[in-house]
């Protein structure tokens, strides 16, 4: 039983990391209807910026600030030079533009900061927490717990921002009905630039966590793919959905990895390791068939 909980908790904590990436998608999709394929590349860019600045001698805090500036500028530039030109184009055109953007980042960032994989040391050691080990005989990673804490703080901050500030309210208004927002004088482009800036910030936090855990390397761009099943589960427009979706994916893939292969092996014989890699997609696919709008997908209010 301890083992079950150990796997479950480990899964939930890693799910938080998925949620972090999914959150970036949700923000942009909600506010501008753009599915930002480049979110994964942005995570990579953020991690690379931090690692690159540290290599050039900056202390961690400075590197994070510099990366924050880079990500914000990058977000604003994207809105200004790519998306603004494409206003009123069909969503597929915008989607294609973000694919182009992803390749652009993936090509340019290594030119600036170098492409070799490297470690990112945030000063949090990835070791079991003694308390859980002694009391419960469970291996719970200290790093995962810290990452989950950081993500929670980030989400709480974003929620406060959306609920209580003037810009946050305007952001939600734009997400609801951008034509109406325009008509009452909310400058859409301004708002979209802010959204891209915030998405850049979220990518930075995700990049820090993922980079520190898996190393700063090209494979970080694939974290975006892990966010997809999270989005399908949680709904593309829901911040709580991204979090719950992330938790479900994280927990279920770890549990599946442990408990399903023996069953399959019992039926068919052979080795069924590596389920973790594809289980989330199957789960998402099944989910799509049952509830296409996701767990928390915004219901369309149809009343006139």
């Amino acid at each position, binding site marked *: 039983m301890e083992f079950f909980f150990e796997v479950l908790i480990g899964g939930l904590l890693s799910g938080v990391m998925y949620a972090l990436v999914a959150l970036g998608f949700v923000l942009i999709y909600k506010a501008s209807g753009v599915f930002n394929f480049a979110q994964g590349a942005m995570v990579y860019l953020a991690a690379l910026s931090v690692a690159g600045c540290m290599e050039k001698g900056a202390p961690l805090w400075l590197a994070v600030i510099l990366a924050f500036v880079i990500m914000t500028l990058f977000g604003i530039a994207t809105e200004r030079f790519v998306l603004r030109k494409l*206003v*009123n184009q069909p969503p597929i055109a915008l989607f294609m533009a973000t694919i182009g953007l992803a390749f652009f980042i993936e090509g340019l960032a290594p030119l600036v900061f170098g492409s070799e994989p490297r470690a990112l040391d945030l000063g949090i050691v990835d070791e079991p927490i003694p308390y859980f080990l002694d009391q419960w005989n469970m291996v719970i990673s200290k790093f995962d717990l810290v990452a989950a804490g950081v993500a929670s703080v980030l989400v709480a901050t974003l929620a406060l921002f959306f609920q209580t500030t*003037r810009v946050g*309210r*305007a952001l*939600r*208004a734009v997400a*609801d*009905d951008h*034509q*109406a*927002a*325009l*008509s*009452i*004088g*909310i*400058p859409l482009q301004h708002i979209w630039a802010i959204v891209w800036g915030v998405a850049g910030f979220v990518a930075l936090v995700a990049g820090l966590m993922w980079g520190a855990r898996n190393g700063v390397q090209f494979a970080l761009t694939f974290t975006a793919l892990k966010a997809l099943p999270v989005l399908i589960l949680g709904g593309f427009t829901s911040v709580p959905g991204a979090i719950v979706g992330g938790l479900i994916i994280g927990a279920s893939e770890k549990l599946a990895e442990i408990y399903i292969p023996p069953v399959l092996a019992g039926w068919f014989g052979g080795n069924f390791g590596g389920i973790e890699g594809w289980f989330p997609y199957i789960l998402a696919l099944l989910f799509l068939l049952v509830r296409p709008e996701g767990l928390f997908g*915004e219901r369309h*209010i149809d*009343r*006139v």
Partner: protein
Amino acid sequence: MTTPAVEHYLSINSIEVIYDHVILVLKGVSLNVPKGKIVALLGANGAGKSTTLKAISNLLRAERGDVTKGSVEYKGQRIDQLSPNELVRRGVIQVMEGRHCFGHLTIEENLLTGAYTQPLSRGQLKEKLEKVYHYFPRLKTRRSSQAGYTSGGEQQMCAIGRALMAQPEMILLDEPSMGLAPQIVEEVFEIVRDLNSREGISFLLAEQNTMVALKYADFGYILENGRVVMEGDAGELRSNEDVKEFYLGLSSAGRKSFRDIKHYRRRKRWLS
């Protein structure tokens, strides 16, 4: 009829609007809104009322529409190139057809978004809210409901209230009566009249509901197929035989002539 003494706040001079580069919808529309007046823009569905209002607010671009000729002036200055944001800052705001409240925001949040362009302190915001609630007591009771779940009348009030938060001098109000029960329509129009007389807000009111619009307006224009076909004081229009017959359904019976047949055709066009 056109007294040079009245100050023309908003004037539109022979504007032409084309959608999608090919569909000519407004074919030279001119109209004026004097300071402190309510002006009605009347006409059947598809006549071009909404297009006219959107042309003024510069909201056509999002619908692939373009103003290709003519000019729009506000207080003597051309405003055709200003963004909606700048227009709202100058005091011209639009309440779009179909209300367009932010469905997932509460009524109060909707109102607050209306003040986006205004640099207001917390206290001033509260004051403005109270003022809106004063005009729309119904909104106060629904302040924390999601706008998407309120009634049509409440949404219309919310949309007007939201515009009020921007401290406007001129409201372009598109089809406020649409889909509302007659007594709610009267309620909304009474508030419009109040806002006009007490706050001095001028209105350009696009309406298919000729009867109600002419009851509250000072002046009216009738639009047909993208052209102004008639204009006059509201009282004059109300007693005009053509308008009576075509729009108010009050024909004085027994006068059937060729002219009436011609009129009848026109009426059919207006009503189709």
